[in-house]
């Protein structure tokens, strides 16, 4: 019996469905204090004065924090970027000025959340308004500065050049120019907002129950900011209601709960965001503008070179940025064999909510850009969308990209073929002809995307060579507990990805026992010591980083168990078999009735060790394994090196009809093909694929963070920022192919983020529907009101131009 590859029911679901999950906000005690965070209503303003006296005087208020407390008690968070980022001061509360709407300016801890809010609203803040800048290009003019000490809004600029770009352009048969493309701002709003409880006791130990999803990293930034050794910080999570990367950065504000707890003599303090706070002030996905794009193609429509200028808008504080200025390069050529690139990449701050590494982080934006290019070129050169892809797809694997990334495996043409069959491509093509005759706007679009998993943190050094990060790792501890039960601890702290289940599957196969006999601890706890500085759930990596750690730990445990069993049973290690006997999990000697069960093995090591001799001194039955993928530090000068270990792929096809009356893009058919190599648990993979598809469709049709010109977020509630619900979800047909990765022990590739496939696919389908109307799809958001505007303002002439010449005919 093997468990890997089966749709084992999720172990987590029993408790979650019964309401027995434990989320950060579920923690409750009567003596607990509740934190209210007062936030700036303005996007850019100087704080002239803060008067907290009325708040402090309200019965039930335990303490109030303002920027001046914070300045004394916190070291600004470490900035990842090179100069001038090092001049940026990022603290949990604004001190001298606010730079985005929703930025915390004060915090109140009180006996109840209601009292805390009442008190918060009694705080009088006097603001002096400053002009705000929300447009990234305008921000780069530096007329309005967010971080005056940095003297510029620009957080990053560099040129990524590979191959022979100028030569490719002079040899080109066609040059397609696209003057502007724009990837809009949205986020994958998790169901559970940010929350934590903090208790900073008088011995100086600080304990958090939280929903941070990248604890290994967060601890390294949070502890020094609070002037604590990491050892004094305990971070725990239990169930997390989704993160999608958004919860990587909640520690910035977890600090407030901690500081309030210390100020209140160590009482526990809970911070729990409301939805509007979450939408205004937690984290958005990166917004990106692509300017002056030029694409060189040969006479057959094969793309030979791309030049472009990209401006990434990271909102008010860089935080995880400017890492996103490099991360996109994991998928530089997308799924295409283009060898020559010149990408001029700039990032700027603006008076908007800071960005976070949201699902599909930075690669999705770039992949959308590449797909728009391929799609627009196909239309301009009258090459059918499927043929255009087939001409340009990478076909040989492993494939080294122009910037040194190694695509492990894949078969994009096979995915395209499968998706076409599934959706009935030929049938829809016929229906499209009929629809056009009737004046209906029906389009068919293809989106091919990549989900690069298990990243090499060395890429951070391309951005800032002084950063002390490279490689990647994950940790697993597996032990036989005092009673012989198998207990596994991980550093991943999942947020719905089913790690307890897939880990059990791997361990069950390795020990040849049933998954129900394995306990995988829920959540994260730094006290387990099962973490590294890379530990967390992010960047589509569990199936590789996490399960490789589990597999490695199993090998170490099995070696010890063989040694111990061999000694007790007087047998050779090679004669021993793992399995389940009458007394539970055991090792037995092949072909005999001699066996030793897990209870006795654990008993010998833990409570009965006079029976053992010195040869067994190293047998602890409690092993810790750190998985380290084989990475090197990239060449930071040339920006060259392998940035990610595995490349899962998705290919989606959508048929969309634009209702010419309501302007709603109706999805008539949708097929999604996934390739994440060896699938550990099909049901879990399907869940991830469905969720990623829903997030993408929601982003295209409904979800957009819209700011007005003074920096007010206009979509700050769920009735304005409408996240996709099941009512808006079309029927999606799912399929898969499997190209095992040669770089993971199990052939799996990291998956989960999904590469934003629906953004590429629906943009392409809408393009196909509207091309004949003189419209080029230049944006990633297509809500009905936006389509209405688009239909009334054809933009092809102003957006695209094609220069063609007959090559070789001179």
């Amino acid at each position, binding site marked *: 019996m093997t468990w890997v590859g089966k749709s084992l029911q999720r172990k987590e679901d029993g408790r979650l469905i019964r309401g027995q999950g434990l989320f950060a906000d579920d923690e409750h005690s009567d003596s607990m204090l509740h934190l209210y965070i007062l936030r700036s209503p303005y996007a850019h303003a100087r704080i002239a004065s803060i008067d907290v006296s009325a708040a402090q005087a309200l019965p039930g208020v335990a303490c109030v924090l303002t920027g001046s407390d914070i300045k004394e008690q916190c070291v600004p968070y470490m900035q990842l970027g090179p100069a001038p980022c090092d001049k940026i001061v990022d603290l949990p509360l604004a001190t001298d000025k606010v730079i985005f709407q929703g930025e915390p300016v004060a915090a109140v801890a009180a006996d109840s959340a*209601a009292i805390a809010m009442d008190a918060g609203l009694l705080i009088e803040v006097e603001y002096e308004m400053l002009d705000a800048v929300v447009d990234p290009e305008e921000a780069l003019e530096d007329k309005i500065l967010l971080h005056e000490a940095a003297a510029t809004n620009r957080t990053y600029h560099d040129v990524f050049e590979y191959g022979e770009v100028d030569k490719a352009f002079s040899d080109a048969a066609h040059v397609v120019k696209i003057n502007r493309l724009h990837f809009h701002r949205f986020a994958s709003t998790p169901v559970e907002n940010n929350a934590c409880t903090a208790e900073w006791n008088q011995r100086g130990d600080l304990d958090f129950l939280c929903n941070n999803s990248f604890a290994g990293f967060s601890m390294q930034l949070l502890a020094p900011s609070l002037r604590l050794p990491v050892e004094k910080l305990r971070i725990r999570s239990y169930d997390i209601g989704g993160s999608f990367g958004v919860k990587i950065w909640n520690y910035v504000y977890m600090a407030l709960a901690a500081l309030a707890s210390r100020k209140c003599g160590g009482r526990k303090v809970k911070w729990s965001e409301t939805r509007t706070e979450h939408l205004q002030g937690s984290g958005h996905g990166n917004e990106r503008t692509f300017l002056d794009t030029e694409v060189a193609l040969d006479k057959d429509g094969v793309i030979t070179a791309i030049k472009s200028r990209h401006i990434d808008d990271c909102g008010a504080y860089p935080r995880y940025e400017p890492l996103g200025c490099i991360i996109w390069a994991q998928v530089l050529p997308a799924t295409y064999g283009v060898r020559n690139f010149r990408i001029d990449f700039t990032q700027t701050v603006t008076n908007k909510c800071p960005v976070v590494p949201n699902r599909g982080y930075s690669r999705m934006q770039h992949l959308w850009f590449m797909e728009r290019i391929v799609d627009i070129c196909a239309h301009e050169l009258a090459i059918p969308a499927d043929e255009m892809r087939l001409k340009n797809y990478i076909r040989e694997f492993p494939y080294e990209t122009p910037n040194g990334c190694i695509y492990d495996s894949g078969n994009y043409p096979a995915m395209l073929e499968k998706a076409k069959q599934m959706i009935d491509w030929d049938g829809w093509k016929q229906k499209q002809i009929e629809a056009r005759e009737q004046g209906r706007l029906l389009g068919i679009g293809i989106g091919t995307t990549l989900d690069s998993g298990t990243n090499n943190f060395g890429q951070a050094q391309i951005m800032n060579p002084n950063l002390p990060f490279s490689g990647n790792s994950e940790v697993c501890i597996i032990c036989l507990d005092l009673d012989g039960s198998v207990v596994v601890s991980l550093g991943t702290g999942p947020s719905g990805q089913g790690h307890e289940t897939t880990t059990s599957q791997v361990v069950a196969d390795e020990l040849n026992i049933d998954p129900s006999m394995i306990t995988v601890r829920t959540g994260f706890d730094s006290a387990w010591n099962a973490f590294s500085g890379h530990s967390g759930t992010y960047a589509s990596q569990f199936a590789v980083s996490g399960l490789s750690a589990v597999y490695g730990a199993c090998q170490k445990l099995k070696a010890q168990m063989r040694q111990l069993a061999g000694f007790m049973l007087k047998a050779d290690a090679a004669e021993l078999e793992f399995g389940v006997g009458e007394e539970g999990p055991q090792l037995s000697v092949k072909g005999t009735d001699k066996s030793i069960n897990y209870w006795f093995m654990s008993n010998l090591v833990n409570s009965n060790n006079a029976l053992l001799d010195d040869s067994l001194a190293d047998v602890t039955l409690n092993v810790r394994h750190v998985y380290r993928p084989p990475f090197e530090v990239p060449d930071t000068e040339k920006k060259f090196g392998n940035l990610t270990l595995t490349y899962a792929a998705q290919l989606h096809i959508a048929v969309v009809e634009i209702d010419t009356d309501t302007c*709603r893009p109706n999805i008539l058919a949708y097929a999604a093909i996934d390739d994440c190599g060896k699938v550990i648990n099909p049901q879990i993979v399907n869940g991830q694929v469905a969720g990623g598809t829903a997030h993408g469709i929601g982003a295209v049709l*409904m979800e957009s963070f819209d700011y007005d010109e003074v920096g007010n977020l206009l979509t700050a509630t769920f*009735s304005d920022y409408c*996240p996709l619900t099941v009512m808006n979800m079309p029927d999606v047909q799912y399929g898969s192919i499997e190209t095992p990765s040669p770089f993971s022990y199990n052939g799996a590739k990291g998956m989960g983020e999904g590469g934003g496939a629906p953004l590429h696919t629906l943009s392409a389908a809408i393009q196909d529907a509207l091309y004949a109307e003189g419209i080029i799809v230049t944006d990633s958001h297509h809500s009905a009101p936006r389509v209405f505007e688009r239909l009334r303002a054809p933009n092809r002439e102003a957006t695209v131009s094609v220069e063609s010449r007959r090559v070789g005919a001179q």
Partner: protein
Amino acid sequence: MYPAPFQYHRAKTVDEAVGLLAGIGEGARVLAGGQSLLAILKLRFDEPTDLVDIGRIANLDQIDDAGEVINIGALATHNRIGASAIAEAIPIVSDCANGIADNQVRNLGTIGGSVASGDPSCDWPTLLHTLDGEILCQGPDGARTLDINGFVEDLYQTALKPAEIITGLRFKKPAAGSGGAYCTFKRCAPAYPTIAVGVQLTIRNGQVDSSRIALGSAGLTPIRASAAEAELTGGSLGADEINKAAEAAVAAADPYDDRRGSAEFKRQLIATLTKRAIAIAQRRAGGETVKNSPEYY
């Protein structure tokens, strides 16, 4: 997201509620299903001193369809109405009741609250315009009946007097040969409509005997599009008449730009939904069963 402190009172009878409201005065608000009021309080758009909960007043949620006139108690929830015999008999009522928000809201929100809100995005006032409804009220000066026309005076303002509450709504059963449709276009279930259009047509021998057209979310109040009705009445629903009615509906509306879309976009939706609602109403008037639910973006 917590309301400012307030005193809570639970009334057992209409008289008690009216008495409490009159006694407390300006700072008091009626609490029914709470689906509009609680959001307003939580966002601190309003900070009343007292809430008078009428939610437990007995028998105020009854639906009586025995006679020619249908009476709906103010406390009848959207879901109660949506699952009632009248929703089955009068499909436009089902369109409206079952299209409001999501189940959670429909389980608690009441028709009385919807009408009392004076919110142009609330569906019931628009529907009551379509069905020529009346509002039954009771206040310190006793009971009175108001016409739905003119009841919503301005944004969030109604003709209710201080301490007066709505006790019920009523409208005549549509005549035989009458059919209606209530069409909405909205971003998602828990969002208010971008535009709503209600149409009720009585058709005899292929001719429109009478028509009612009302618009929701199309201005500061619900709007009765009388000029659009006039385009249809007496005609036979030819394409030209329908287009003219749609144009007249657009002309009657006064939409504004917001996150749901620009005023121009909304005008296009008004024209579209008017035509769609007429088409469904026509088929229903002819005895056909037509499914109709909100269209989401």
